[in-house]
């Protein structure tokens, strides 16, 4: 039992080491990008921001509008319409501290994490990564770095939108359903939206973005020669990303709050 646990822990540590190495190698390439020019890398980066960020925006907006409404509805039904400042405070705590970064990362994993892992896996199996190398193009520089940067940028920006829309959805619901005025609602929100709260939310989404993109890139690159490994890469990328973001969320929350 202990031996099995030890083996599992060793595997886990090795896995984290591999992820760190991949991230390090990708960022080391950014120096080369500065030296050799950024045009092709910028194109891949912008495409990644578009697919991960812009295309996910409608889903994020609708989802977080509903999340804000739901939280306010539950809070008012629990504490009453007169406690608008408390409901606002709870909304900020739940959305900015937890749901904003976490749920955004989950959506990005579902939409883009699988896409990154399967796309890279397909490219590897088709020999396209070797072709890039034979053209003198570093796959780490051209494929991995812009994907990691693009997906992380998208998670950061999407989280900002998600949190803003969620608060707006909460206010709309409180205002339309229970007639709570804006000033009263603001009393529960503005004092709690401190730079520290926003900073920690930013930190979480930054870490989640880096983690999700690195895990999915690593899964995509880890396939062998069989086509059946492509969907497996996607599935593993999703499952490992989910597990790791929840673990890190707990770690960051326990450390900083």
């Amino acid at each position: 039992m202990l031996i099995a646990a030890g083996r599992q822990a060793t595997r886990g540590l090795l896995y984290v080491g591999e992820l760190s190495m991949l991230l390090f190698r990708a960022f080391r390439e950014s120096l080369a990008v500065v030296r050799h020019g950024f045009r092709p890398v910028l194109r891949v980066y912008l495409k990644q921001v578009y697919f991960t960020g812009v295309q996910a925006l409608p889903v994020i907006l609708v989802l977080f509008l509903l999340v804000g409404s739901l939280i306010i509805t539950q809070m008012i039904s629990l504490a009453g319409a007169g406690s608008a400042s408390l409901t606002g405070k709870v909304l900020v705590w739940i959305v900015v501290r937890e749901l904003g970064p976490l749920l955004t990362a989950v959506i990005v994993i579902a939409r883009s994490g699988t896409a990154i892992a399967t796309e890279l896996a397909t490219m590897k199996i088709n020999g396209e990564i070797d072709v890039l190398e034979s053209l003198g193009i570093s796959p780490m520089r051209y494929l991995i770095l812009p994907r990691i940067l693009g997906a992380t940028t998208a998670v950061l920006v999407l989280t900002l939108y998600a949190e803003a829309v969620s608060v707006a959805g909460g206010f709309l619901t409180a205002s339309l359903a229970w007639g709570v005025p804006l000033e009263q609602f603001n009393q529960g929100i503005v004092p709690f939206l401190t730079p520290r709260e926003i900073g920690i939310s930013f930190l979480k989404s930054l870490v989640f973005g880096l983690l999700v993109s690195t895990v999915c890139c690593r899964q995509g690159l880890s396939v062998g020669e069989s086509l059946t490994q492509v969907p497996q890469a996607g599935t593993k990328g999703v499952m490992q990303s989910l597990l790791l973001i929840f673990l890190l969320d707990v770690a960051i929350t326990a450390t900083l709050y």
Partner: protein
Amino acid sequence: MDATVRFIDAVLDPVLKGANRSFEPGTISAVVTAGEDVNALLVRVLTGLTRLQEGQVLVLGCDLGLLSRDGQDEVRRRIGIVYPDGGLISNLKVLENVTLPLLYHTGESSREIEKRAIALLDRFGCGEVLFELPGNLSASRRRRAGFARAIALEPEVIVYHWREGGLDMEERELFLREAVAFHGEAPGRTTIFLTPHAGALAGAGTFPIVHLTRGQFE
């Protein structure tokens, strides 16, 4: 002029067993191998993606295995590989496939690069499919677009991983004619055809044919 490929006591079991051969500047050669797998492996060896077990392969005077990452990329930039299926990147449109190495390796403006890429694709009859993804093209068009990409950087060494299938007689002749014409466009360019049988290159002209048998160039 160092546009030479040189195998020195090259060992890579089971394909190369102490093989020696020089491909001199300005020459066209055909290497007849046991099959496509061997050709693919030789391409990997020439581009430094597969290391020899013993010996050396010098391309343009450099042993790729001894170079830094940037050094390898610099030499690879000077080698053109024409893949049997085109070797196009599946998520890039045809035009993007050809502009990619130019954007990556040259400081030319994007407009200039696009103009050059379009001219190259026109030369190979791919002018109408600039914005198609490779998956939507016929095998022949993919190969021609891959050819356009391989010569975009005007390589000093060009290696054709040759496959006869997928091209009709007319396309094959056109392809070989273009290959020979491209060879003649720069003095000192080294051209190597890797083919499973010499008959596949009929009509390309006369040039030395080397057989890779039992791990040796003969």
